[in-house]
């Protein structure tokens, strides 16, 4: 260690802290195999990282252990940060939770602290100073790993929300002046707003007279979203289009009536087929079956 390590020393004992950390690092290096095994054992005992196999746990544990010692040695968390981000990317899709990640880092902190107690138990004063040097660094490591894990998870969530938002509400024209909006998945406030916007723009762009909103794929609706739907229906009417809502499940129908949402202005039809038939009637279409089908198919 020729160059000066970047150890965060807040008091005048900087030199002493450095010395202690150096000693600490060499202790951890010397006992690497034993401590690492102890740690991996404690991880499986505590039933953490159950999504990973024993071999995976051991190899990740080795990498984390080495980065951990590296941080103690250099005082820089950058390499650990990269590793933590990389690790998070790999284990998040496998369903590893925050408490597990925090749990394993705290376990390592505990395992190492115990080994320090054991080594310095004869000299209480020295033990105290070693812990003074060790604990801030260990806390910082725990923070870095947990922070990176949570940050990575939030990034994934944001990305997925973005993806859902993009494919969330198609506005389709099925006939001249007839639009269909199939809605799949949970409607929250934001999605409902986006739906309204796209629908009203769609009415203007396609010169629609009738719109069928199909909510067969919507499991539940709360009163805010229901009221928003009613407002959408009224706004569409202001633009000269009538709205038919189809596929209100019996559960949703019961909820809405119990909540007291006023749906008397809404034209509701049981299923999408009925909705399209009703829309064709409103538009004056008459659909008749051709006679080109083979007779057994009729």
């Amino acid at each position, binding site marked *: 260690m020729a160059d000066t390590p970047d150890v965060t020393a807040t008091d005048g004992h900087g030199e002493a802290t450095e010395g202690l950390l150096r000693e600490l690092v060499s202790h951890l290096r010397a006992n690497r195999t034993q401590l690492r095994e102890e740690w991996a054992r404690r991880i499986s005992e505590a039933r953490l990282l159950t999504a990973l196999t024993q071999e995976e746990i051991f190899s990740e544990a080795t990498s984390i252990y080495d980065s951990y010692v590296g941080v103690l040695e250099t005082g820089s968390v950058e390499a650990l940060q990269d590793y933590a981000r990389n690790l998070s990317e790999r284990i998040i899709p496998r369903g590893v939770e925050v408490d597990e990640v925090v749990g394993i880092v705290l376990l390592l902190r505990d395992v190492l602290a115990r080994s320090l107690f054991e080594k310095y138990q004869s000299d209480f004063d020295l033990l105290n100073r070693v812990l003074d040097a060790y604990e801030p660094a260990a806390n910082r490591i725990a923070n870095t790993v947990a922070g990176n894990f949570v940050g990575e998870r939030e990034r994934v969530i944001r990305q997925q929300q973005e993806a859902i938002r993009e494919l969330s509400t198609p506005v389709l024209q099925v006939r001249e002046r007839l639009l269909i909006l199939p809605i799949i998945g949970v409607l929250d406030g934001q999605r409902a707003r986006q739906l309204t916007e796209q629908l009203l723009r769609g009415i*203007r762009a396609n010169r629609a007279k009738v719109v069928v909103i199909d909510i067969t794929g919507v499991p539940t609706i709360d009163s805010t979203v229901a009221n928003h739907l009613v407002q959408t229906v009224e706004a569409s009417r202001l*633009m000269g289009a009538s709205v038919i809502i189809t596929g209100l499940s019996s559960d949703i129908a019961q909820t809405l009536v119990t909540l007291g949402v006023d749906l008397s202005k809404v034209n509701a039809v049981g299923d999408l087929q009925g909705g399209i038939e009703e829309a064709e009637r409103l538009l004056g279409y008459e659909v008749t079956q051709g006679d080109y089908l083979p007779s057994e198919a009729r």
Partner: protein
Amino acid sequence: MAVPILKQGPVLIASIQTALTDTDVLQLREDVMGQVTRHRSRGIIVDVTALDVMDSFVSRSLRGIAHMTRLRGAETVIVGIQPEVAFAMVQLGMKFEDVQTALDLEEGLALLRDQLKEPLTGAG
């Protein structure tokens, strides 16, 4: 700025061009009522395509015009309400429940034609 009112057969077309002051709105009401009486019009179309905001006074007045002309035997259709305006109006509780609306001028004319059961062009 005064709103021009055009006569097209039995129908009057009032095409709002810019944002209206309260005075303009009252003037529009006067003009429409005067012309309905003079031309014995059967329908009125108020085109608000150019408005990207519609305050409560304007929308209340338009609704008033619709009610008044109905008393003179003429049906009013508001056309060209923009998507943003439509949703803002609904959120503010101005729903135009007893006023007819249509997408644009063409739609409004078609609507009146169906209701009046007579061609809109010609001597009127």
